[in-house]
């Protein structure tokens, strides 16, 4: 009994720890992925056209990219090790399959990203401009590769394929039978593209917001005007990509994890031609005080047909108990309901921001529209919130499973006294809060100062020794 109580609280502490460290890590990662690409593009334009303006912007956003990159790296180390620390029974169960992408990520992606980023940071004026340009592209490629493996690993937890469960020394383990199936998992491909488009969208909105801030104040108008134009076009394209893939994921979710879809709408009973509620005032138990509903939208979203059937929570719960035994198979509804709406709502809002920007560009009024510029600077926070709610939605929605249909979260946690987990939970939360304050402070400082604070270009004295960058 004592151990049972200890087990329960260890699970919830470990889940909080994973949630906090992962959401925090993923505030920075999408910006790294997207901004690396955008900086590479700016630097390429600067290189091809020998254009000082693009070069300044590449260095300015490059500096912000590095501040952000550092925190992504150091929090990433925790990600790699906390599976073993807090989720050792999970690690044993899935190591055969889940470990491989993690190892390959290190070998293929992390080495590439860190090594070439080192060349990029320290190599200006030391390697040729062409090699310097190649190094930011290779670092960026590394970030995109890294997302492949981690999303493939996560997709396997959402929708296990290419495996077989066996018993080794009395412990169940999933072993891999088909590596190709694991890395071509349908869940993986849509999720990867959704995440990557989302990352590019994050960076383009970040760029646009900072450019808008400076344009509104009349700082380096010609430089930031150029950047804003690129950012607007990328925001529109990436916004459309993110939404399109998200829609495709919804249909997949109805097939693979119908409970998550039902929870996203708090739909209790199976329906044909189900409507979608934009928002609800009151509780989600079916008797709202106020609701705005769009007819048939949920059916279209989940099944692509006007009168398609969307399964309800009650039916899915009884199906699950028949299949897996007693217990609740319903995730936390209010979390699912609201994170889904925040994520989707912000996605459309950002697309609208891009579209409005595009309109102003065509009219030639981009720099003059104070209203747009103010709105754009405030939208800086939106993609970060959308990224976080998106992951909370998909991870909480899989509960009570850690590996869907195979292993429950409560059976995955390390058998350890809750005190250890509590100590590291407090420790990581304290460290991360401290880092967040520093990071945000530094970001704001560098971003608001603008390119005027950059050091002079280093091409002036080629004979000098290794530059003291750090």
């Amino acid at each position, binding site marked *: 009994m004592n151990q049972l109580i200890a087990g329960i609280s260890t699970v919830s502490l470990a889940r909080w720890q994973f949630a906090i460290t992962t959401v925090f890590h993923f505030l920075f990662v999408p910006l790294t992925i997207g901004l690396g690409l955008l900086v590479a593009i700016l630097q390429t334009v600067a290189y091809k056209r020998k254009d000082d303006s693009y070069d300044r912007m590449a260095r300015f956003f490059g500096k912000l990219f590095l501040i952000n990159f550092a925190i992504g790296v150091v929090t990433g180390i925790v990600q790699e090790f906390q599976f073993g620390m807090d989720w050792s029974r999970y690690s044993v169960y899935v190591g055969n399959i889940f470990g491989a992408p993690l190892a390959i990520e290190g070998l293929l992606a992390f080495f590439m990203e860190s090594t070439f980023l080192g060349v990029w940071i320290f190599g200006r004026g030391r390697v040729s401009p062409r090699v310097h340009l190649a190094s930011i592209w290779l670092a960026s490629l590394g970030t995109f590769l890294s997302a492949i493996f981690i999303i493939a690993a996560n997709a396997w937890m959402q929708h296990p394929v290419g495996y077989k469960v066996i018993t080794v020394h009395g412990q169940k383990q999933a072993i891999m039978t088909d590596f190709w199936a694991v890395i071509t998992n349908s869940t993986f491909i849509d999720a990867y593209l959704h995440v990557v488009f989302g990352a590019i969208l994050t960076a383009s909105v970040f760029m646009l917001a900072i450019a808008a801030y400076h344009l509104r104040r009349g700082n380096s108008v010609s430089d930031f005007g150029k950047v804003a134009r690129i950012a607007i076009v990328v925001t529109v394209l990436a916004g459309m990509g993110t939404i399109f893939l998200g829609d495709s994921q919804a249909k997949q979710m109805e097939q693979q994890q119908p409970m998550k879809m039902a929870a996203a709408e708090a739909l209790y009973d199976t329906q044909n031609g189900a409507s979608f509620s934009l928002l609800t005032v009151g509780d989600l138990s079916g008797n709202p005080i106020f609701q705005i509903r769009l007819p048939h939208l949920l059916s279209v979203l989940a099944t692509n047909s006007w009168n398609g059937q969307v399964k309800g929570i009650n039916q899915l719960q009884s199906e699950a108990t028949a299949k897996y035994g007693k217990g609740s198979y319903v995730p936390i509804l209010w979390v699912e309901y609201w994170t889904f709406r925040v994520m989707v709502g912000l996605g459309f809002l950002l697309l609208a921001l891009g579209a409005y920007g595009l309109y102003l560009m065509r009219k030639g009024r981009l720099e003059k529209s104070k209203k747009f510029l103010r709105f754009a600077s405030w939208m800086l926070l939106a993609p970060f919130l959308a990224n976080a709610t998106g992951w909370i939605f998909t991870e909480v929605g899989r509960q009570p499973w850690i590996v869907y249909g195979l292993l429950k979260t409560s059976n995955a946690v390390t058998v350890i006294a809750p005190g250890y987990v509590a100590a590291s939970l407090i420790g990581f939360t304290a460290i991360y809060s401290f880092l967040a304050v520093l990071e945000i402070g*530094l970001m704001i400082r560098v971003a608001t100062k603008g390119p005027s604070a950059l050091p002079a270009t280093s091409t002036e004295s080629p004979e000098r020794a290794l530059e003291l960058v750090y």
Partner: protein
Amino acid sequence: MFSLLATTSTSGLEQLWFALIGVLWLGYFFLEGFDFGVGTLLPFLAKDDLDRRVLINTVGPVWDGNEVWLLTAGGATFAAFPLWYATVFSGFYLALFLVLAALIFRGMAFEFRSKKESESWRRWWDRAIFWGSALPALLWGVAFADFVHGVPIGQNATWTGTFFDLVKPYALVGGLTTLSLFTLHGATFLGLKTDGQMRERARRAGVLLAPITFVIMFVFLGWTYLSTRSMHHAGLVPPFLPVVGLMVLASVGWLIRDRFEGWAFVATALSIVTLFTTLLLNLYPNALVSSISPRFNLTLADAASHPYTLKVMSIVALIFTPFVLVYQAWTYWVFRQRVRRPGEEITATINEPVEA
């Protein structure tokens, strides 16, 4: 049908992956060893902020790539020996938390310290670099000593100990060994990477550290030889490896004093490699030795993934490892110059660096 999994050896793949993970750890300690050393020496060798920047910039372009060796070792252990990964990382819970916290502050410090012109801002990050380097340098040695001496695991690799089972005298000597050896390695690295006064200071630090390091490592390896073999018959220790390691380490003092800087660096690198090879071979064929009873030892075969996973990973490793080694070596070549204070004269050198 799957009974072959339960037997001790299914193929050579476990041995191969034990060797590969061993190489990843060796690479990690060889490379991050010197940047831990530089971080530990930071408050002792630097007289002003410019000095500190010189020191930090010697590892600036490479520290992050060096740390990836650790991540890859962790990932490879997860994939190839899930039970090993799960047992170690949950068992060393608080110790690992400390290492992670230290590495977090250290990494932030490198990237953040010069992003703001402020004396106190920089001083705080410098402290983070020192503690973030010295603490993991110590704790990795503690951890590896624990591996060799045995950890409190029972049936089915169930962890039965607490944090304090991990900090025994033997393990602390192991920690001091790695701390002093990495610091010495940092000093020989700085001999190759700095110039003028700093190079001279690194030399003096090396001359001072070399005999101390030798004594600590001698005690540690002697203790290892006397205790572990008789306790567990845990595996073979080819005696020439630790002996060669000690002999090489004994030469470091002379090499530094007579300004054979390249050879001194090679010697500290070899000492690190022989030390960890000795410890890992001592572990073989176990992944973990139980301090409770040899019956509970976790063998590599018990901990290993299914051969299918190991085969897939072997193919991936075979294809991509050469590229990684080539481009990482290339960056060391690109940044092979010594780091100097702006305007510092380039001094003539007798022994040019043998670059790694």
